[in-house]
């Protein structure tokens, strides 16, 4: 990188010299102006996220000023008409759905990623990876439609009866909500939505583990699987965690697909079949309406702020890990 920028600097000097010697000063000036404009543009774009945070913070300030933060976060009462804005049910809704999604998605994605990176031939991989990319390109309302048409009936007709028969003793599987719309439906839809993220990132991370390391392990007689488990995955561990964090932040912030299948009942879910009301659904369903209720829209933007900060934390964390990996 250093070499490159040094080279480019030299180039620049040379080309300046060149243009000057032909006394084309106007072109030179135009070049410089363009350079400055491009830099300004890039820097503007790069401060967008801090600006987002600032805007949300400013607009949420009325509610932060009148309500204790811990009340906002941990109160379970959500009665905007009476001025009670407890986000806890929504936060729990988001966490439940996201956790269920990750529990389903992480093992399946990682196994697929390991398979693609370690066991398939390049030709097969070149066939499968684009298909997984297609999964990433499907719009979230289509996932939502799929959830409504396939996942919800499946849960209602197949999963709930059998869970009732085999796992009914655990409160995790008991519910008074017979519709199928709920945490599990949201979790399954989200799980499929984050497949491509976790798979693509962790597959790439696993493949960046140097071949020499694998060969070193094979050369003392370790099998392929032993090498993967003890060496490759250990080496790829930070990157795999980063991949999972990326998936988590995607699931955490997903709106439309979840909204269509979680049931949207303001309550703290206690079972995977209970309906939930995630933060994103709260914003999507209510923002822009009922603006007459005092503080209501400040509360919703506060919810957006919480969402953004959580997603940001996970995103930055994983990006920093991935950047470190690609430099080492």
């Amino acid at each position, binding site marked *: 990188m*250093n070499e490159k*920028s040094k080279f*480019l*600097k030299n180039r*620049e000097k040379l*080309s300046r010299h060149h*243009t000057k010697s032909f006394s084309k000063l106007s*072109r030179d000036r*135009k070049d410089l102006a*363009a*350079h400055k404009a*491009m830099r300004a*543009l*890039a*820097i503007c*774009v*790069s401060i*967008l996220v801090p600006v*987002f945070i600032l805007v*949300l913070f400013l*607009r949420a300030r009325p509610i932060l000023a009148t309500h204790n933060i811990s009340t906002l976060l941990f109160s379970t009462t959500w009665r905007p008409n009476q001025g009670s804005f407890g986000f806890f049910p929504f936060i729990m809704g988001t966490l439940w759905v996201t956790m269920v999604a990750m529990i389903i998605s992480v093992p399946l*994605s990682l*196994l*697929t990623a*390991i*398979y693609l990176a370690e*066991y398939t031939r390049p030709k097969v991989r070149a066939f499968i990876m*684009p298909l*997984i990319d297609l*999964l990433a*390109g*499907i*719009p979230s*309302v*289509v*996932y*939502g*439609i*799929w959830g409504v*048409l*396939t996942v919800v009936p499946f849960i209602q007709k197949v999963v709930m009866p059998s869970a009732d028969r085999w796992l009914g003793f655990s409160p995790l599987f008991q519910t008074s909500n017979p519709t199928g719309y709920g945490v599990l439906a949201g979790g399954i839809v989200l799980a499929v939505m984050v*497949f491509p993220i976790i798979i693509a990132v962790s597959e*790439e991370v696993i493949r960046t583990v140097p071949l020499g390391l694998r060969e070193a392990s094979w050369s003392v007689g370790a*099998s*392929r*699987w032993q090498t993967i488990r003890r060496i490759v995955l250990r080496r790829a561990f930070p990157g795999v965690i980063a991949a999972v964090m*990326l998936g988590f932040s995607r699931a955490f*912030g997903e*709106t439309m697909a979840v909204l269509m299948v979680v049931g949207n009942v303001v309550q703290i879910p206690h079972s995977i079949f209970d309906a939930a009301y995630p933060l*994103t659904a709260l914003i999507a369903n209510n*923002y822009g309406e009922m603006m007459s209720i005092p503080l209501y829209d400040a509360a*919703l*933007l506060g919810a957006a702020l919480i*969402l953004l900060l959580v*997603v*940001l934390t996970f995103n930055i964390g994983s990006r920093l890990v*991935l*950047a470190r*990996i*690609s430099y080492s």
Partner: protein
Amino acid sequence: MLIKQKLEESFFKILMVISTIFVLGSLLLILGTVLWRGLPALDLAMLTQAPQGGYYLGKEGGILNAILGSLCLAGGATIVAVILSLPIALYLQLYPVPHFTKNWIRLSLDILWGTPSIVYGAIGFTLMIYLGMRASLLGGIIVLSLLELPIMVRGMEEAVSMVPKALLESSYSLGATRFETAFKVVVRQTLPGLITAILLAFGRGIGDAASVLFTAGYTDNLPTSLLRPVASLPLAVFFQLGTPFPAVQDRAYAAALVLIVLVLGLSITSRLLSTRFTKNIIR
């Protein structure tokens, strides 16, 4: 010992194959479901008419408003995004940007990429209220263009990074300035890659619902003005599914089918356009 190891390896290999089948199967299942439920509901009227009176009760009409609206939204946003992204991508790739600045810009773009679209929507709407704007095509275009920006910059950077050094050098040595080299030589050289990036971003823009929910609004009319609300396909799917009438819900499936054909068509076209495009997530 040996047998235990072999068993362990076979066990995990089977799990891996099952997982892979599961992942690919979910893709098939999604496409299959939408096709199976959407195709019967799809007819020519749906594609060529705007909703008539009583459309939401299952009477005649179509989703032309949403199709055209989505094309206008995503098309406009893509144009804005190209205007913003191309200079940024060329700047990052061809100019002597200090190391720290470059990393900072890339990290910011990555984070922008990860920002939930509902947050874009909420912020966009807040700013629009502040500026006294109504939900409109323009508002939707602006928010969507920010959503598309990081994807486009990433794709364009990738394309530009494949330009051979020698080409740049020969351009410089012929006396072309960096600016001329970037916008004439490099852009022409990398056109397929740039178009790939543009199509990908367009695909993401056309499929996004949460960001246009507040900013573009919804209407039964065809798009006419930048300052009027505009319909979009994802929201057409969403709203029609929300009605209690099965006939209208069927149309939601048909709309979803139209949407997915558009998006996958774009994705496949862009892939065919540049066979050398590799999605490099780590940087």
